């Protein structure tokens, strides 16, 4: 099921936690993202993938929310990746230094392949069953 606006769909595949987020990332997003992060703290994954919509807009406060979460993850040695950004926001993420905290991928599938390996579809299907 696809998430609604300002909702997170959470999926665990092997040691990867996938957060698929629909909508813009602004102050209103903060409680949703922070709650998701709190939830995983009891069973932390070593890898987290933020999957955004390509048309998602990130305002500066939204970026601050992401930076804070990524810094927390970095402190716990969690590897963070981001997929689904538009070209514009890939540049912005790079400009503000988020690329120092997370790896950016052009597509969700590309990110899964890079993180889970070429058999990512099977792994995902198996974990999903």
């Amino acid at each position, binding site marked *: 099921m696809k998430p609604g606006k300002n909702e997170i769909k959470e999926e665990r595949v092997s040691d990867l936690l996938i957060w698929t987020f629909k909508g813009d990332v602004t*102050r209103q997003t903060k409680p949703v993202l922070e709650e998701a992060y709190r939830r995983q703290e009891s069973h932390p994954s070593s890898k987290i993938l933020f999957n955004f919509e390509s048309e998602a807009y990130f*305002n*500066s*406060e*939204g*970026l*601050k*929310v992401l*930076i*804070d979460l990524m*810094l927390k993850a970095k402190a716990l040695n969690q590897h963070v990746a981001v997929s689904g950004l538009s070209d*514009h926001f*890939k*540049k*912005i*993420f*790079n*400009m*503000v*230094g*988020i*690329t*120092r*905290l997370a*790896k*950016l*991928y*052009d597509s969700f599938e*590309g990110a899964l392949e*890079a993180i889970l390996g070429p058999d990512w579809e099977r792994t995902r299907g198996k974990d999903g069953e």
Partner: protein
Amino acid sequence: MESSRPDSASELDRRIYHLKTLYDVSSELFSSIDFDTILRNFLLMSMGNFGISKGAVFVQKSNDFDGARLICFGFEDENIDALKESSLRMTKTIAGRGDSGSVMLAPEGFPSEVAALLPFGLADECQGLLILGDKLTGDAITEDDKELLITLVNNLVVALRNACSFERISRLNVELQAKNEELETTLTELKAALRKVEILESIKSNLCKFVPTTLKRIIEDTGATLCLDPKECDVSVMFLDIEGYTRITEQIGAAAVNDLVERYFSVFMDAIYTNNGDVIETSGDGLLVVFFSDDERTKAGEAVRAALMIREQTSKVNETYRGRYQPLCINIGITSGPAVVGTNKFESYTGVRWAYTTHGATVNLAARICSQARGGAVFLCKETAQRVKDFCRTTSIGTFALKNIQEPVEIFGIT
């Protein structure tokens, strides 16, 4: 795995994003009127825009530590006090120096994570400081960054000033509301007091009909300090009565006599009051009138003038009743000398009753002299005759032994 290198961010994207940030910050700041909310939102957006993980904003509202507000993100707890103290020192240093609005390096005393400062002034006694840590990229703050920061801070200053104005207006509104409530209470109390005054005025105006004018004047003049203890003073006293009152009452009946008394005494009032007299007591067919003017001869003269006017008015009223009633004769006795004037207080279990009266030998003598008069005569005691000799001719009509008065009394008539 793909990632963008730092130098791939195009200038156009950066400028677009900065413009968008400026728009977002302005929209956010001006959508709130709460001082702390404005500071917090501004700081988060600025930090997000520049990719800064540690930042703070400090505002010193008055010249002491308690008046300072510090909102910060990312700093260790143990550094916050040092950050606040350094910020306070800094704002005191820059106050009035005119170097607000420019980005500078952090001086000594600030925690080492602080990379840059941007002071700003809100008002003469209100300075602020934007405190920024290092960028995530590790890059230094560029001239373009400074330009945007200054523009953002200018927006912050306007928003904070608006918030201050709103706070002040709200406070004034609360004060105004309190004043209005006070006024409303006062108005209600005043209305109640006015109603009481109206009732008291109504009671007063009704009671005044039964009270001597002298007493009314004393009460109005002295108010709450009313002191009407009897005291002796010099007066002229006029006593008048209707000759043959008992006989007339039997002939025409009490009701008709009452009408007659009202008719005659009403015209006497004009004569009495135009000559500064005051009716102290009434008793059926008689009136006790006292003249209080300061000068002895004046008050005696006023009493005699009043008596002559009463005699003249009596003749006129007699004319109007010709054929219906027998003409009335009003006999008058006038004396001058000391008398006790004031209140008598009678206290009992049923309450207190006050009476304003005059008594003494001068008053008794007036009644006795009046009793000697016949056919509407005006008789004077010797003292009164002495006092009015300059404007009125008097003739001794003899010396009389009067009831309950030891010495014979010489009585004078007016010719």
